[in-house]
Structures are given as structure tokens and as C-alpha cells.
């Protein structure tokens, strides 16, 4: 079979042919190593691109978010005349709560600049103070009715435009027509600054208030509580269901068409676009079952169905990683199948299951699209107190604020993103730590 090559001088052969080949290889080396370096460079570039984009995203958002954590305030001297608030002197709460604080605040603001007289200028002046000032004065009086008749200094927020001016986001060197703050307002603001009436303080409103149309009064507490209740429902529904399903599929299910169908189904469900789950929630939970719109309970159910496959898949692989020898040992002692699972397999698989659950919950926490479908986009000022109250969630709040035209909402959106990312990082880190802490090599 090893008859001579058709061409005795062909490249294949010992001696001469080998030496020729070696020479050819040597000649090709330079070109090939250049190609090698290029290829490797593409790889490095790809990784660098992805990492740079991540860095760009984080720096953009964090740098935009920083100003949101401070708020420009003004120390306003307010005279709480008794005849304005409570002419009869009853100190009745209802009377106190409904008094005309607006005019009190107006007077206090106009007192700052007695030289401002025209209606238009007065209006512009009053616009520099946030509408929240009125509520701040009211709350002060309600908390301490003894103050009536006194002259007090109240620290109230300034309007979002003045706040932006103070933070340098609205620039003074832009022509007046192109910015939202008038020249006069800037002049007044500078005079107030010189008087020492302006203070820049930590923006606690952002963490204690619900949503608001006024950026300076808007906070994430409502959305955060909404997220909390939604996640609670999701966890309570998806965790037990997923663990039970995973145990059955991994430990008991016979291998047949039906089990295969379930498996294929779970894998596919994990890849169904999230918005489709929103359509399901709208059609089934809201229209068919008549559950309340905008309620965390519905959002929680939808997200539970969505995270179910993630947790089932994670739980199954955790169960699979428990070595059969453990099961055999327990069976050998006469334990029933369920006892084997409950006493031995499940405790060993639990860290893995919990890790998967945390990751699934983190996904659900960041999910927006399906919640839009079930009405969790409503403008809701009140902080929800239960899973049935209308509420929104953090990512939806971000979406709503991102859509708002006010400049000051940009920084609040970024700040809300930082808070959301903070929660997500916390969850993921705890998942990683859990995995590290309990990781077992069998």
C-alpha cells in the first residue's frame, strides 16, 4: 500500500522534503505570528470595549446622580399670625390643617424683597420657592400649635429650577430666553446668598417621600415600598412552588413524554420575553379574575411566574450536585423517599437553591416591562402600606422620571438607579458569598 508517491519529488517524504517543508514553515512564521497578534488584539479589544461600556454607564449615572443627594433650601422668616390660621382660637386640628398657609408663605417671601412690587415680579419671586414650603409650614403648625402668633424661621426647599441654578446645571451665561430661570430671579438668588439665607443640605426628602410632580418634593420611598411588597409576594409564591417542582422533577419524576414536556417547557419559559408575562397578567389576573390594577400583589404574581423557571433550573442543578451516595446511605437505613429528601438532600442543596433564588429575585427586582402592562405605572403619591394598595416599583419609577421633562428629574432618575443598582449589587454579592461559604466539592 505504501507504493512510492506519484511524484517522487513531492513535498512528502524524508530528508530533502522535510528540509524543504521546514524552510517553508520558517518563511511563513512572520506572517502567521502577525496574524496571531492581530487575533489576540481583537479579543483584548472586545473585552476592553465591554468593560469600557460598563465603566461609561456607571460613571455617567453616578456622576449625574450625585447632585440629587443635596437640596437647596432657604431659611424663611414666617410670621404665623393667629388671625390667618385660627381666628377663633379654637386650636381645632381641622381648622389648623385647612388654614391658608399659602398666603402666609407668600407674605414671607415678598418680605424678603420689599422692593419687588409688580404682579409679574412677585409671581416670579414666589415661583422660586417650592410649593412644598406651604406644607412644611402647615406641618410645623400642626406639630406645635403653640407657635401661632410667633415669628419663626422655617427651612423650606427652593424650586427645582433654582436648585439646578445653585448646582450649576442651569448656567448663568446662557441667554435668558434659553434658560428656565430669569435674570431677575438670578439676581434675587444672589442677594439671598449674600444674606446667608441659602443653605445646601442633604436631600432627605428623596428617601422619605413618595412620588411628586415637583422634583424637589419627589422621593423613592413609595417605589421602594412597592418593590418590597412586590418582591415579598414574588418570593412567597415562587420559592415554594419552584422548590417543590424541582424536587419532583429531579428526584421522583419518571422519564416519560410528560416529564420531557415539562422540562422543555421550563427551558422555553425562561426565554419568553418578559413583556409577554405582562400580557398574561393583564389578561388573566386583571381582566379574567378581576384583581386590582396597580397592586403589588398582581405584580408579584406576574414576576413569580417569570422567576419560576430560573429558580427551578437552579434548584434542580443544586439537587443534582448532591451525590447519590448520600441518598443511598439514607435509603440503606430504611428512610422513605420523602425522608431522604427532607432530611438529607434538601439541606445539602439549600445553599445552591437559595443562591438561585436570590439571583432570580434580583432579576425580578429590576424588571419593568411586565409591570407596565398591569398598571403599575400610575402616578402614585402615597407610600403603599400593603400588597393591595396601588403602588409602583423602583424600576418603573425610574422609567416615569426618565420620561419627565424637568431637568431636575434627570439627577433624581440617576439617583434612583443608583439605589436600585445598590440593592442588586447587595443581592448578587450575598449570592456569591453564600455560594462561596457553602460550596462543597464532593
Amino acid at each position, binding site marked *: 500500500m505504501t507504493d512510492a508517491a506519484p511524484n517522487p519529488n513531492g513535498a512528502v517524504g524524508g530528508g530533502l522534503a522535510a528540509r524543504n517543508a521546514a524552510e517553508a514553515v520558517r518563511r511563513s512564521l512572520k506572517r502567521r505570528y502577525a496574524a496571531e497578534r492581530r487575533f489576540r488584539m481583537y479579543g*483584548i479589544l472586545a473585552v476592553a470595549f465591554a468593560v469600557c461600556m460598563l465603566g461609561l454607564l456607571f460613571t455617567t449615572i453616578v456622576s449625574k446622580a450625585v447632585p440629587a443627594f443635596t437640596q437647596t433650601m432657604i431659611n424663611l422668616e414666617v410670621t404665623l399670625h393667629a388671625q390667618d390660621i385660627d381666628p377663633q382660637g379654637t386650636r381645632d386640628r381641622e381648622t389648623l390643617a385647612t388654614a391658608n398657609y399659602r398666603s402666609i408663605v407668600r407674605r414671607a417671601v415678598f418680605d424678603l424683597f420689599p422692593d419687588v412690587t409688580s404682579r409679574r415680579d412677585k409671581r416670579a419671586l414666589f415661583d422660586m420657592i417650592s410649593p412644598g414650603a406651604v406644607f412644611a409650614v402647615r406641618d410645623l403648625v400642626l406639630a406645635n400649635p403653640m407657635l401661632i402668633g410667633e415669628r419663626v424661621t422655617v427651612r423650606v426647599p427652593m424650586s427645582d429650577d433654582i436648585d439646578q441654578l445653585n448646582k450649576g446645571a442651569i448656567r448663568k451665561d446662557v441667554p435668558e430666553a434659553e434658560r428656565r430661570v430669569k435674570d431677575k430671579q438670578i439676581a434675587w438668588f444672589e442677594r439671598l446668598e449674600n444674606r446667608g439665607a441659602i443653605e445646601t443640605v442633604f436631600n432627605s426628602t428623596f428617601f422619605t417621600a413618595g412620588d411628586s410632580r415637583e422634583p424637589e418634593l419627589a422621593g423613592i420611598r413609595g417605589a421602594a415600598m412597592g418593590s418590597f411588597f412586590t418582591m415579598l409576594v414574588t418570593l412567597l409564591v415562587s420559592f415554594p412552588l419552584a422548590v417543590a417542582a424541582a424536587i419532583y422533577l429531579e428526584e421522583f*419524576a419518571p422519564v416519560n413524554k410528560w416529564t420531557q414536556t415539562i422540562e422543555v417547557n421550563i427551558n*422555553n419559559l425562561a*426565554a419568553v*420575553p418578559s413583556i409577554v408575562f405582562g400580557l398574561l397578567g393583564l389578561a388573566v389576573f386583571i381582566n379574567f379574575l378581576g384583581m386590582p390594577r396597580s397592586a403589588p400583589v398582581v405584580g408579584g404574581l406576574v414576576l413569580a411566574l417569570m422567576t419560576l423557571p430560573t429558580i427551578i433550573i437552579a434548584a434542580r442543578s443544586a439537587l443534582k450536585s448532591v451525590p447519590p451516595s448520600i441518598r443511598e446511605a439514607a435509603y440503606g437505613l430504611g428512610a422513605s423517599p420523602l425522608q431522604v429528601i427532607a432530611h438529607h438532600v434538601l439541606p445539602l442543596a439549600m445553599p445552591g437553591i437559595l443562591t438561585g433564588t436570590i439571583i432570580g429575585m434580583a432579576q425580578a*427586582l429590576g424588571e419593568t416591562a411586565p409591570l*407596565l402592562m398591569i398598571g403599575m405605572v400610575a402616578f402614585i403619591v402615597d407610600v403603599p402600606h400593603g400588597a393591595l394598595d396601588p403602588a409602583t416599583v423602583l424600576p418603573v419609577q425610574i422609567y416615569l422620571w426618565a420620561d419627565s421633562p424637568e431637568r431636575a428629574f434627570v439627577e433624581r432618575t440617576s439617583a434612583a438607579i443608583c439605589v436600585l443598582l445598590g440593592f442588586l449589587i447587595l443581592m448578587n454579592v450575598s449570592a456569591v458569598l453564600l455560594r462561596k461559604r457553602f460550596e462543597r466539592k464532593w
Partner: protein
Amino acid sequence: MSFPVLFGVLAVLTLFGFFLGRSRAMATAGGQIRNLHSLPNYYGYYIGLWCAVPGFLLLIGWMALETTVLDGMLVAHLPKRMTDVPGAELSLLLNDIKNLAHGDVTSRQVVDADLKDAAAFYGQLKVSSKMLLAALLVVLACGGILIARGRIAPELRARNSVERAAMAIMIICSTIAVLTTLGIILSLLFESLRFFEKVHPLDFVFGLEWSPQTALRKDQVGATGLFGAIPLLAGTLLISFIAMCVAAPVGLMAAIYMSEYAPARVRGTVKPLLEILAGIPTVVYGFFAALTVAPFFRDWGLEFGLTISSESALAAGVVMGIMIIPFVSSLSDDVMSAVPQSLREGSYGLGATKSETIKQVILPAALPGVVGSLLLAASRAIGETMIVVMAAGLAANLTANPFEAVTTVTVQIVTLLVGDQEFDSAKTLAAFALGLILFCVTLVLNIIALTIVNKYREQYD
């Protein structure tokens, strides 16, 4: 008595049943565990299950059906002149009655006696519904406890019964995934069929114009709206294509670098970084696209004399591409690591360089898996919602120009359904028909991708 309270009551009763069962079993066995068939705890579980399962089912069923039943009763109670109105107005009326009963403001200026009467009736209905539920729950739970207690005897095979019940519960749980899929298909199909009664399916699938604004009055121009899905599909494809143009090369090269070149230390840092990219909520990407990337492209276009819309398909696509890089890279990484070491050695043994080995041996060997991962990534791009909602346009342009604004299927679903819509209009139903298309397309992509990947895995296992 709200539902959480009732669940609490049920839990307390169940706990009581558990202890009762345990002590009862011990009592019948004369205090000797070895006289019992099962451990005493199992008798506890036995009673607990008899108490909890019927009660739980009752509560869930009531929760699901209460609103529907009460609404029906309310409508039946209302005088005919009030209910003889179109569906949308009726639902508004019901809403007002409920708000009134709840003590909230209503949408009407004047609240007449009829309405007040109805509200009072509804309030009463709700109260009696809850009373009835509470009574039924207690009866059912206690009845369960009594029946089960009567059966407890040393020879009762409590463990076997409890385990059978547990197995049944687990089997039911495992079907939830199938039920969810079924629910998705049925609700999408059902609503789509209603849509197709108003708009012909062929007009929908092959129509070239999309303007779903149904007018308020019948005589207005374009009162029926135009529901041609082609521009939406084209927009979706355009944006997904741009996304894949970013994600496929970057993800693939990143995967190659990570699996074949990177030293362990680099791999250890970069891999988690890429995973972070996958964990960022899409709404954040949307914000990033709208705030940073789109203006960047627009300004960049101005420099070169190009008109790039601030809602360009390019910006949305590029950001979406960044989002799916980690999907491509981690899946491809897995797939390439699965290529047997012997093939690498075979190639190195012939004197191939690393890149020659990768390009000519590993990639061809891993091709099915890589294709699968790209398909999965494409399906994710097609179904992605928030980035396009925030960064892509609303107007349905039929164009292949990436600098122009296009809209996508998901954007339209969101715009059609967000805001107060009556549920029966062609507009809202159209969203479900779009959802059906989206579901089918992604499902087919997923099935193909998963089949390819599984086949591939088997090949090297």
C-alpha cells in the same frame, strides 16, 4: 377580615391540628411510640393537611372569584336604566360605586341617591362575603381536623398518607410551568381572535401601515385605525440586527479571549464584570441610551453632516447590543470550553498557532453551539422592551436607515396598553395580537437554539 388575616387563622388552626394529631396518636398508642405505625409527627402532619389543604383551596378560590361574583350580583341589583349602557360606561359606573363604598372620591360631579344606594349595597355585599368566607373557612378547617382526628389509630399508615399527599402537591407544583405557558398561549390567542374579528389577519400581518389611533367619533378621518404590522416587524428586525452586529463580534471575541487566551487572573476579574453587564436592569440601559448614547450619535452625525434622529435605531440597537454581549460571551465561552482538549492538542501537535487552532478547529467544532447562543441572544433582542421604549421612536417608519427613528413590536405593545384604555377596543386587542407574534417568533428561535445546543452538548459528552 382581610385575606392575610384569614391565612393567619388557617395557619393557627393547622398548627393546632398538628399538635392535636401528635398527642392523639400518642394517646391511642398508650404512650408507646413503637405501637404506632408511623412517628407521632406524621399523625400531626396528617391532621394538619386535612385542615390546611381544603382551607387553602377555599381561600385561593374565593380570592380569585370574589370580584367577578360580587360584580355580577351588583349589576343584578342595579336598576335596569343604570345597567343599560355600553360596556365601558358600565365598568366606569361599577368603579365609581366601589370607590364610593370605599369612601373615596368618584369621577362624577354629583352623586345621586341611586349611586349611594348601590354603594351601600356593595359595601354590605363585601362585608357579608367576607363573613361568609370566614365562617366557611372555620367550618372547613375544623371539619377537616375532626374527620382526621376520628381516623387516627395506631395502625393508621399516617406516613404513607402524608407522603402521598406531599407527592401530589409536588406534582401539581411541577405543572405550574406548563399551566403558565398554556395561560400565555390561551390568553394571547383568545384576545388575538377577538382582534381579528375587527381587523383581518392578513391586513394585520401584511399591512404596511400602522396608525392605531382609533378616533373618538365615528365620522373622523381614519376612525378605524390602521393595523399593519410590517413596519413594526421591520423596525424590530432593524434594531435587533444592529444589536447583533455589536453583540456577536464583541461577545464572540470576548469569549474566545476569555476561554483561550486570558490568564486566570484576568479571567477571574473580567468574567464577573461581564456578568454585571448582564445583571443591570434594562430600564437603566434605556435611560443610558436616551440620555447619553442617542445625543452622542446625534452630535456625532452633525459633525459629519448626517441627520441622525435623537431616537435613532442606531442608538437603541447599540445599547441593546451592549446589553446582550454577556449572553453571547458566556454561552459561547461554555460551548468552546466543551470542545475536547484532544482537538486542540491535535492542532498544536501539527504546529498550528493558537489563532489558527481557534479559527480552524475550535470554532468550526463549536459552530452549532455558537449559532445556538447567537439565536438565543437574538431572541432576547427581539423581546427586549425597556431600551426601545425609552430610546426608540413611536412613529412606525418603514425604513432600513439606522439613523432614522423606527418603532418596534414591544414599544407598540407598551404604548397601546399603558394609559387608561377600555379593554375591548381594537387598539388594546392589537397589543395582544402583537404579543402573539412576539411570542411565536421568540418561541421558535428558542426551540431551534435549545435543540441545537442540546444536540451539540450530547456530541461531546
